């Protein structure tokens, strides 16, 4: 369970996020939807403690992100905007490195890596250097790395970027499985279909603030639009940045 109130962040006098409140519950997929530059990444970076908010606070299962960042990070699995793998390490070594940084014992981390490699169907490339992997393989590796310590909460920053249709479908299946296992899944996207196909709850961001929240159906109902895309355009007040 992830909750935040009044999160704000500026970079050199430019406000990227101004007062975001959000809540993402366990056993649900929450989508952070917004055009480019709406403050999605900045919000997620504050939630995963990489950035410190100028104002407001956030809790990961009750752990305060600014006051007890290490505790918050232990409860979080993060898939950043770029998969950011180490090219000279194999997929397995990439996963094991993070397991070690999470303080897992040798036997536990090797077992867990095996489990994830099976679960994410990575057998074929698990022991090859990450350098030559496809985008889909990289995302899987990064996801395995994010889940290695068995976090209850999973943050994903535009996880479908650069994936082909099959890879996107696979990822959707994985995220649903995480939800069904009781995880709290929060992901950002600017792709409408993505959000409507997957999310239980949608939070719409525009210009650094939350402009609407609810289930996809609720949003359609509230705006009186038949498609979520129209609803979205109406909510953010323009069609800038829609991709």
């Amino acid at each position: 369970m992830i909750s935040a109130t009044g999160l704000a962040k500026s970079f050199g006098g430019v406000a990227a996020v101004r007062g975001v409140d959000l809540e993402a519950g366990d056993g649900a997929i929450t989508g952070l939807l917004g055009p480019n530059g709406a403050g999605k990444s900045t919000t997620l970076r504050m939630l995963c403690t990489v950035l410190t908010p100028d104002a407001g606070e956030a809790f990961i299962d009750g752990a305060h992100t600014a006051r007890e960042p290490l505790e918050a990070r232990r409860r979080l699995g993060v898939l950043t905007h770029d998969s950011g793998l180490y090219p000279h390490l194999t997929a397995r070594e990439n996963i094991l490195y993070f397991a070690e940084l999470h303080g897992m014992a040798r036997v536990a981390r090797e077992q867990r890596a095996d489990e994830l490699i099976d679960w994410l169907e990575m057998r074929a490339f698990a022991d090859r250097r990450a350098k030559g992997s496809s985008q889909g393989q990289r995302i899987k590796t990064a996801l395995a790395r994010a889940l290695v310590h068995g976090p209850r909460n999973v943050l994903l920053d535009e996880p479908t970027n650069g994936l082909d249709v099959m890879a996107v479908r696979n990822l959707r299946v994985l995220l649903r499985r995480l939800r069904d296992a009781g995880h709290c899944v929060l992901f950002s996207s600017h792709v409408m279909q993505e959000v409507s196909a997957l999310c239980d709850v949608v939070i719409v961001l525009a210009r650094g603030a939350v402009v609407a929240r609810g289930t996809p159906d609720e949003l359609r109902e509230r705006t009186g639009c038949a498609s979520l895309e129209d609803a979205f355009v109406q909510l953010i007040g323009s069609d800038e940045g829609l991709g």
Partner: protein
Amino acid sequence: MGAACRVIATVWRKEVRENLRDRRTLVSALLFGPLFGPLILAAALQFLVQRTADEADQRLVLAVRHAERAPNLMAYLEGRNVEVTRVTLDDAATRRAVRERTHPLVLSIPEDFAARLAAARPASLQLYSDASASRTDRDSARAKALIGQYGASIGRLRLQARGVDPLLQVPLAVQDIDVSTPQSRSVTVLGMLSYLVLLAMILGGLYLAIDATAGERERHSLEPLLTTPVPREHLIYGKILAAATFMLLSLVLTVIACAIALRFVQLENFGMTARLDAGVVARIILATAPLALAAAALLTVVASFTRSYREAQTWLGIVMLVPTLPIVFVGLADLQPSHALMAVPSLGQHFLITALLRGDPIAPLDAAVSSVSSLALGVALALLAGRLYRRESLLG
């Protein structure tokens, strides 16, 4: 404390393993310093030795205009390992021949040479040479010395013929007493060894330092790393230690390679011996090693300021010369080793290496001062790097 050590060890292991697989790091750590360094050193020394050895017994080639006007002088020169080539050139053609090196050295004998000699008047000779060519400089000095000797012997004969003791003409006699030992002479030439060893050591960790900071940010692997439950400064300590490890590896290889390379240089021809047996090699490594931490931390601090791999490369190319500056300064100012100077990191190492090569005893205090001050600087720079890594702007 235990947790911190565990994290630092984890990061260290990963950086070392990853960089052992990276060709660029390997080439700079294991090839450039340890291989090319000693090769360049050995080649330069061999060249120097050869040249000095050659010059003594090499025949001096001297072109002479109108050699027939001074047959005795010619016989004198030919008797002293000079190859006299008779040429017929006018003044302009001579100048051209010297400039174009067809005849690097030309002696011209004027028409009145014999007459003036007979009249005991100073007989002039013209020696053409090109002072801008390094090689002819020595040759012309040798030719001048030989002609001078010939002149002096005529002078002595003239005095004797007039009943004057030739020794009256020699009021002073300066004797050169060179107290240098073969070993200390070789140190002037081997002075560049400490420079080379320090540079090769730093180069060994250069790419790892860039890769672990600017490279990590550029590959976007920094952000996921920062979401692990680990204090940021522990990450950077692990990286610094990994860079220092590669520096030590490069140091060990370079010193051993230098010792081997110098075996192939015939330093004895030069009247020199370099003491580079196993004991000296080990002591040079021990004396230099404490500097690795400071060098690794320095490169890491600078690399964490830069925005990209390329920018880091540019900056570190300059920064890696910083530890060699004290050596250059001391060379120019001709300072002698002292306890205070030993405390200057890199300079202390330079003095210790030079002393070891020279075969001088090393005061334990000097070695301790040098090691402790270098390590202290390393710890201070590592702490600074840790502070820099805690900044938010790290992600760029």
